[in-house]
């Protein structure tokens, strides 16, 4: 194989090593990756614990949202029922959708990624363990507080998609809508943090030799899932920001009377919302592609096609957002593309289904609970997919839009495409981390109750919809709708009973352990089934095939005896091997952080910031925000510390460095992905600007003086130059690089002030017209970057003063430079866009 990094592949022949390993190295490994005690369970960062917390948290929200569904079905069981009043029903259906989508579905699959990926890739942990823990705590604490709003009648009530003008201040004057808009803010942050972790983890911390052709399908799907989050979530972040700004400050982005347009919300929301279905589906499909080969003891048929399908789904799903807007009066020319894309996206999804069916046919199914749920999932998902193609047909969509037909379709897709695979995954992977296996008897009962209940509830709902019953109504007259509604309610309780059995099974039988587990009872072939501890596998194997445990019967023993990479702790700290993205060649050893209170504090105060803002306790919210920033800075301070060992032996005499910087380093990759997120938000803001301009271009104001534009552009360009020069100067004079970082921030701040003061002098009023609101939004967004860039500049100076900027460790200054260069580039584009349109270009 051609080397990607210059690594000699013949070195792999040294493994498995011969001869006894010292007993002390295993003891040291256990000491370093020790089990938490007492309060350490809160500060723990190990993926086994954080992943389990995450899965548990997501499952809790699934149960809570499920209870809300049962309450809704109880209300709809009888015509003109008085079990719930209209307002409570509105809050409950909004919370059901919101909690299922934002607090269960996306976090659940992200959680399984964090739980399974390190073991599956034979990494010691995810590359940023504190980031995973931060993501979990921000999500869990914020999510619980958000959910509690329903107990005091303050839950959002505008549907999970929160369309304005219904959710504008005029029609939703309370703080219910704000709970949604600000409440999911921390969930978005959490999802993006997890996505960064997963992208870097999959591409950079695989076991040596695990080139992309040998990457397990679950890892492929998690990689595409994470990239899709990075592309799609910025749109909803921007949408929520704009609507909250409209509600709080009366900036009219969605007010048609003042140059705004409610359709902008729909574009932004569905650019996130439709890919979100695939964001949820792809990891679940990845789980299916792992479970089905194991239960049939047959390699996945059409592995390469499945990879292609995952990639194609990731792309095409972004061309389907208008699928939800066919009734809004868009021109037929546009709707034709989206209709075609809506149908086309079923092709890669179908490709995966055919691969599963072929694998089931090629092997011999060993019936077990995961097998039942996996096969049940195929049946349900295919039915949901077919009605999806029906809804992609514009004329049919006009008929079925906003009826129960759509409710039936989306539940078939989400339950078949995500819930059943997830439960299959619970039963399949539980033996990997539990002392006892889950009950086959209870699991099969749960399956049949859920499978039958699913069809009883939702199959009939197609007809309810075609009979004309609209969604989101709290009651209905005694009519033809009564019987199908009663049947659906019976089915919903059957599903509830099935889920209850799973809960009972988990309580009775799931006993977490990292070492003393049931093990590989399904005889699967991938690395997560190696004997593990909190350090993941004892040593990190060289991967030679897609199913290494099937192809090398001695692998588990050799790994357990420490005969592969990193049988010890080479540096005396937590560490993992960073490998190259294509061939997975060892590049360097990453030193990893241990437990800490700072990421926990940052999470608590981040959630506090958003929630206190929602209940309008502004000063407390600001204090919470400042504390969150303080915790994050303190957390960052512990990174990039002096190196004791510059190069270490990672096994069989192979030496690698313990430090890397620039595009080779995992930190650089993480910052780059973060900047893609920022860039996407900015791109969506530019789309919003052009979109609203296109509504009423004649009402946009006159030009501002060009001299000011050129001054701001010059200052921004100087800031960009300083940011780019700083890392180049670092090797000679770290102090000068730190000063340049501060200078870059100062120039950027000046550019912002010049621009903002000029708009102010021109009488810009964000409340008067959407143009003013958009310019103010650009200024606010850029202002946020100015503040962060300034903080980074000061941080660089503080590190220099503390003696932490050493010539051989440029990673910190490189990250700061990357961020500041992006911020300056963004300023240049924002200045040009906001003023070019005013000039009438």
């Amino acid at each position: 194989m051609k080397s990607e990094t210059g690594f000699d592949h013949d070195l792999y022949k040294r493994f498995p090593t011969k001869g006894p390993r010292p007993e002390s190295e295993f003891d040291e490994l256990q000491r370093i990756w020790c089990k938490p005690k007492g309060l350490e369970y809160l500060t723990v960062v190990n993926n086994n614990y954080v992943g389990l917390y995450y899965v548990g948290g997501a499952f809790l929200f699934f149960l809570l949202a499920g209870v809300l569904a049962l309450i809704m079905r109880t209300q709809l069981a009888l015509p003109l029922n008085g079990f719930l009043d209209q307002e409570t029903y509105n809050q409950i259906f909004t919370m059901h959708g919101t909690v299922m989508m934002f607090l269960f579905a996306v976090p659940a699959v992200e959680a399984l990624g964090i739980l399974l990926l390190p073991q599956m890739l034979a990494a010691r942990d995810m590359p940023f363990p504190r980031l995973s823990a931060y993501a979990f705590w921000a999500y869990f604490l914020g999510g619980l507080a958000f959910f509690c709003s329903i107990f005091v009648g303050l839950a959002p009530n505008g549907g999970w998609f929160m369309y304005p003008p219904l959710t504008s201040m005029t029609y939703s004057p309370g703080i219910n809508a704000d709970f949604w808009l600000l409440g999911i803010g921390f969930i978005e942050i959490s999802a993006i943090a997890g996505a960064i972790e997963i992208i870097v983890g999959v591409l950079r911390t695989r076991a040596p030799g695990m080139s992309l052709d040998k990457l397990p399908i679950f890892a492929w799907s998690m990689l595409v899932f994470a990239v899709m989050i990075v592309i799609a979530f910025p749109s909803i972040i921007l949408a929520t920001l704009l609507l909250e700004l409209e509600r709080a400050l009366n900036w009219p982005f969605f007010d048609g009377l003042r140059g705004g347009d409610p359709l902008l919300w729909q574009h932004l929301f569905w650019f996130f919302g439709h890919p979100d279905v695939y964001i949820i589906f792809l990891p679940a499909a990845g789980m299916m592609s792992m479970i089905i080969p194991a239960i049939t003891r047959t390699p996945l048929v059409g592995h390469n096609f499945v990879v292609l399908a995952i990639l194609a789904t990731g792309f095409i799903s972004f061309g389907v957002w208008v699928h939800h807007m066919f009734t809004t009066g868009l021109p037929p020319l546009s709707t034709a593309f989206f209709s075609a894309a809506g149908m086309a996206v079923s092709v890669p999804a179908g490709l995966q289904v055919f691969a599963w069916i072929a694998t089931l046919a090629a092997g011999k199914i060993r019936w077990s609970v995961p097998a039942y749920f996996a096969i049940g999932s195929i049946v349900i998902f295919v039915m949901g997919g077919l009605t999806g193609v029906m809804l992609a047909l514009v004329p049919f969509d006009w008929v079925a839009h906003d009826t129960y037909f759509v409710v039936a379709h989306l539940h078939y897709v989400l339950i078949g495409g995500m819930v059943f695979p997830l439960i299959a995954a619970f039963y399949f992977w539980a033996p990997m981390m539990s002392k006892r296996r889950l009950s086959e008897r209870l699991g099969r009962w749960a399956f049949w109750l859920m499978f039958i209940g699913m069809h009883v509830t939702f199959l009939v709902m197609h007809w309810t919809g075609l009979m004309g019953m609209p969604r989101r109504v709290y009651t209905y007259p005694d009519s033809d709708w009564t019987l199908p509604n009663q049947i659906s309610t019976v089915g919903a309780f059957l599903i509830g009973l099935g889920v209850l059995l799973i809960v009972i099974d988990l309580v009775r039988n799931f006993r977490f352990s990292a070492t003393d587990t049931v093990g590989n009872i399904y005889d699967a072939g991938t690395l997560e089934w190696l004997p593990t501890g909190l350090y993941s596998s004892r040593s990190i194997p060289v991967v030679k095939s897609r199913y290494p445990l099937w192809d090398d019967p001695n692998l588990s023993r050799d790994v357990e005896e420490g005969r592969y990479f990193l049988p010890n702790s080479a540096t005396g700290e937590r560490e993992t091997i960073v490998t190259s993205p294509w061939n997975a060649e060892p590049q360097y050893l990453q030193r990893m952080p241990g437990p800490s209170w700072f990421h926990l504090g940052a999470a608590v105060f981040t959630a506090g910031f958003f929630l206190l803002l929602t209940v309008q306790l502004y000063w407390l919210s600001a204090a919470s925000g400042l504390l969150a920033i303080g915790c994050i800075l303190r957390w960052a301070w512990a990174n990039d510390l002096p190196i004791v060992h510059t190069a270490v032996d990672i096994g069989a005499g192979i030496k690698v460095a313990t430090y890397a910087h620039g595009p080779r380093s995992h930190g650089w990759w993480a910052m780059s992905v973060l900047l893609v997120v920022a860039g996407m938000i900015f791109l969506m803001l530019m789309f919003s600007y052009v979109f609203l301009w296109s509504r009423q271009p004649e009402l946009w104001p006159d030009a501002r003086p060009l001299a000011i534009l050129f001054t701001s552009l010059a200052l921004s360009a100087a800031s960009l130059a300083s940011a780019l020069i700083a890392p180049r100067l670092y090797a000679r004079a770290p102090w000068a690089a730190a000063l340049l970082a501060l200078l870059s921030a100062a120039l950027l701040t000046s550019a912002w002030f010049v621009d903002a003061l000029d708009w102010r002098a021109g009488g810009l009023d964000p409340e008067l017209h959407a143009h003013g609101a958009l310019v103010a939004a650009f200024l606010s967004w850029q202002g946020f970057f100015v503040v962060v860039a300034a903080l980074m500049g000061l941080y660089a100076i503080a590190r220099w003063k503390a003696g932490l900027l050493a010539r051989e460790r440029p990673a910190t200054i490189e990250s700061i430079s990357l961020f500041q260069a992006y911020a300056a580039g963004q300023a240049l584009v924002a200045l040009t866009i906001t003023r070019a349109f005013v000039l009438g270009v």
Partner: protein
Amino acid sequence: MRKWLLFLAGPLIWVIHFIAIYVIASIAALAHQTHDLWPRMAIGIVTAAALIAFIAALSLMRGDHERLEVFKRNVAMGGVVLGFVAVIWQTLPALAL
């Protein structure tokens, strides 16, 4: 970066084509000219360019018989074929409108 671009060439060309035809359709709608000839001609030209780009990408996909290279080539070629079909699939109805 070049490796990734070639690996994802099919879906990437699809994305560029999709954005282009969406922009053309939006401009036509803005000018109230969705039923005129020029939007359809513009979409036709962009589509022809996309199809040529697919063929060009396909011609660049060479490599040895190593397992990783074969995998990359197979997935990349599959992406090109899928993208080719998707572009035709979503453009033809619009041109026929």
